[in-house]
Every structure is written in C-alpha cells, then in structure tokens.
C-alpha cells in the first residue's frame, strides 16, 4: 500500500515542564526521554518533513519554551514555508521571548490555563503560575499573532466552564478551546479522579450552546466531548499514518502523540532512518494504516474511513490490544469496560506529573 502524504508535524521538543498537571498526556516514564535531539537534528527533521509535503508544524512538549533554540527552530520552519504553531502553558512568555518568537515568524500561539481562577488553577498545576499566564495572555493578545486559549476540562474544573468562557471574554480571546481530558499517559493513570460525570458534560453542553449563540462573530468556542461519552469514537489523527506525525524529544517518530503508550510497537528514530522512510514503511506506521488491519465490527462498518476504527492507543490501554475496535465505540464488544469505568468515581488523590530524575 502506498502511504498518503502527511500534512502536519508535531515537534515535542522536550518533556521538561515546571507544571505538574495530573491530566498530562505525556508518558509516565518521562526520564527516559532526557536525551533530547540537538538543534541541528530538529532542523533536519523539519527539512525532511517539508520534503514529504508537510505544511503545518506544531512545537509542543513538555514546555517547548524551555528549549533556548525554539526561536531558531521556528525561524527555520517558517523560512521553509511551514505554518508554525506554538503550544505552550505560557509561564515563560516575557516580552523578550515574545519578540524573539514573533521575529522568527511564529504564526499562532496556543496558551493553556488550568482553571478560570487563581486558587483552583494553581492547585491543578501544583505551583503558582496562573497570574503569570494571565499576564502572558494579555501580552500575546496585543501582538500581531493568532492566539487560541485552551483549557483542559476534567471533573475538578468542569463546573467552572461558564467562568472559563467569561475569562476568555475578559481577555478579548477570539478562539477558545475547551478540551476534555484525553486519557493517555498521566491522565490515564489518574482517570478515576479526572473523569467528568455525565451531569457535568450535559451542563457544559448547555453552557457552550448559549455562549456560542451570544458570542457569534466574536469568539469561536470548540468543546471537545470526552471520548467515553461520545457513542462513536473520534477519528483519531484522521487515521493512523494518514496525515499526522509526531517526533518525541528523543527522536522517536509516532503516528499519534500518545502512541508511545502502545507497548507492543517499537518506534523508529530520526537519528537512525530518514523521516520519509519511517512514515512510509516503518512497522509502527504500517501496522494500523488504512483499513486492512481492522477486525469486526469495523471491517464492515460504513464509517470505517470516517473514524478509522477510533484510537489505537485507547484500544491498547483498555483492552491490551491496539488492533481492536476502540472500546469507546458503542459497537465495540469491549464497550462494557468503558461504561464500567464511567461508574468509577474515586477520591484517590491525583498523582502529579513529575520529571523525577530531570527536575
């Protein structure tokens, strides 16, 4: 089978981060990623991606602004014609850093907040950062760059969704992303304490519908339903190895940012093989590309090229087999395991994301 052309590359520059959000999708074994790619290696990755037809580059982490070469990498990507997106928690965006990033040609910044109020936000982040973020948001909003505000929702902040929208309005945000936590990495570890209740999700849908109507033309609001409530799975990454690739801090190439969680696959590294070759023919990319790997009920499903069997990482986490139908699909024979999880609410303390040996 010939590989389709990728259009987006996510560069996870580092997994270092000064925050300890328990909903992080990064892997639990953060310390095994401490050997980070060099500036020259990242530039080569960007060049190879452009040669493969990629037009969008995301810079993420961890916290990507902890890499001093971030402006240099953005300048390199931008000169090569890539549209550049920075996904940051914003605590290091002082004026000098912003000048450097915008001077490099950065097109879009996404800043995340943990909650609309300082006390709750700082509790979730595990450190005092909310005030700094609020300041960064205002500074970016005054600049000539696209800005998205993001807030990851979970049981501990879902009821503040109206206040998140009000926060966005106060700060003149035109694009707000209310993203329900996705259960990978640390978030999966903390799932019992993070999963929103059905009542919370229903309430949120009402609040969002009202706000969308009231703010039409001023603010666009995306509300991403939690997978476990959707009925049908999300078309994860628009299909495994169809359009999107991620490179981890240590050079592993993944079809999805959470794919390292699939312990039955090995992922080739950009230090060992050209990116294009990894995309086209490495075992991990070929494993679940297209529809030939699909079991029933996917195989005969009329949505098989719409949702692509859902999420491989989720299938692995919930059934120990990445080749099964995503159990969040109501047609999956394993759907019961997901429904069972919805009944589990626990007061078990959340485990904060920690670098262990790194920080």
């Amino acid at each position, binding site marked *: 089978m010939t590989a389709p052309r990728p*259009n987006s590359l996510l560069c996870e520059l580092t997994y270092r981060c000064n925050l300890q959000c328990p909903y992080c999708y990064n892997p639990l074994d953060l310390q095994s990623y401490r050997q980070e790619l060099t500036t020259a290696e990242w530039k080569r990755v960007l060049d190879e991606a452009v040669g493969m037809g990629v037009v969008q580059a995301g810079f993420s982490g961890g916290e990507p602004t902890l890499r001093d070469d971030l402006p240099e990498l953005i300048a390199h990507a931008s000169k090569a014609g890539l*549209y550049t997106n920075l996904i940051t928690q914003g605590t290091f965006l002082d004026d000098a850093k912003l000048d450097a990033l915008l001077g490099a040609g950065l097109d*879009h910044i996404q800043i995340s907040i943990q909650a609309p109020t300082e006390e709750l936000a700082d509790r979730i982040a595990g450190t005092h950062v909310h005030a700094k973020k609020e300041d960064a948001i205002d500074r970016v909003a005054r600049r000539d760059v696209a800005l998205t505000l993001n807030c990851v929702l979970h049981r501990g902040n879902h009821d503040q969704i109206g206040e998140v929208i009000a926060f966005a309005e106060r700060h003149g945000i035109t694009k707000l992303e209310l993203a329900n936590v996705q259960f990978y990495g640390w978030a999966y570890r903390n799932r019992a304490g993070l999963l929103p209740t059905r009542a919370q999700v229903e309430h949120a849908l009402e609040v969002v519908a009202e706000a969308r109507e009231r703010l039409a033309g001023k603010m666009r609001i995306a509300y991403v339903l939690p997978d476990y409530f959707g009925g049908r799975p999300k078309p994860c990454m628009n299909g495994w190895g169809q359009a999107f690739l991620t490179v981890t801090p240590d050079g592993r190439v993944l079809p999805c940012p959470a794919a390292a969680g699939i312990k039955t696959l090995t992922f080739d590294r950009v230090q060992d093989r050209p990116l294009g070759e990894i995309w086209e023919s490495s075992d991990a990319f070929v494993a679940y590309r297209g529809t030939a790997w699909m079991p029933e009920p996917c195989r005969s499903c009329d949505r098989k090229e719409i949702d692509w069997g859902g999420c491989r990482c989720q299938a692995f986490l919930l059934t120990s087999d990445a080749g099964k139908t995503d159990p969040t699909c109501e047609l999956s024979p394993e759907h019961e395991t997901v429904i069972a999880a919805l009944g589990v609410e626990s007061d078990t303390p959340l485990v904060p994301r920690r670098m262990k040996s790194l920080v």
Partner: protein
Amino acid sequence: MRLHKDTDGTMLLLVPEGILRLNDTAAETLALVDGERSVDAIVDALGARYAVPRAELGRDVEDLIERLTLRGYLTS
C-alpha cells in the same frame, strides 16, 4: 493565516492548526486581500479578469470574506 502553494499547484490557506484547500477563484480573491484594498477594489480587480457581472462577483467576494471572518481568519 497564510497562503501556500501546494506541490500540485493548488493554493492552501494555512490557519491555526488547520489547512483549507482553496478553489481557483477563492485563491485569486485571497491573493488580493492585503489589508489595504477595499472589498470594492478587490471586486474591481477580479472584474477586470472575468466576464462575470459585477453584482455577482461582489456577492461571491463578500460571501467568502464573511465566511472567513466568522471563522476568525480575517478581521475587518
């Protein structure tokens, strides 16, 4: 947002974490959007190239600009 010529010659509109594939007329219209030209001037420029009634061109251009503005990609 940024206009980008794809390898097959199609024009792409690159927006935050998204890609819109443009048809030829949309691409030509957006190539004229520079923050200086008025909508009228854009319609005039297109009118000089196409044998389409001005009123129809005007409607199409306004429709395109309105849709992109609603999605937050253009500001007036």
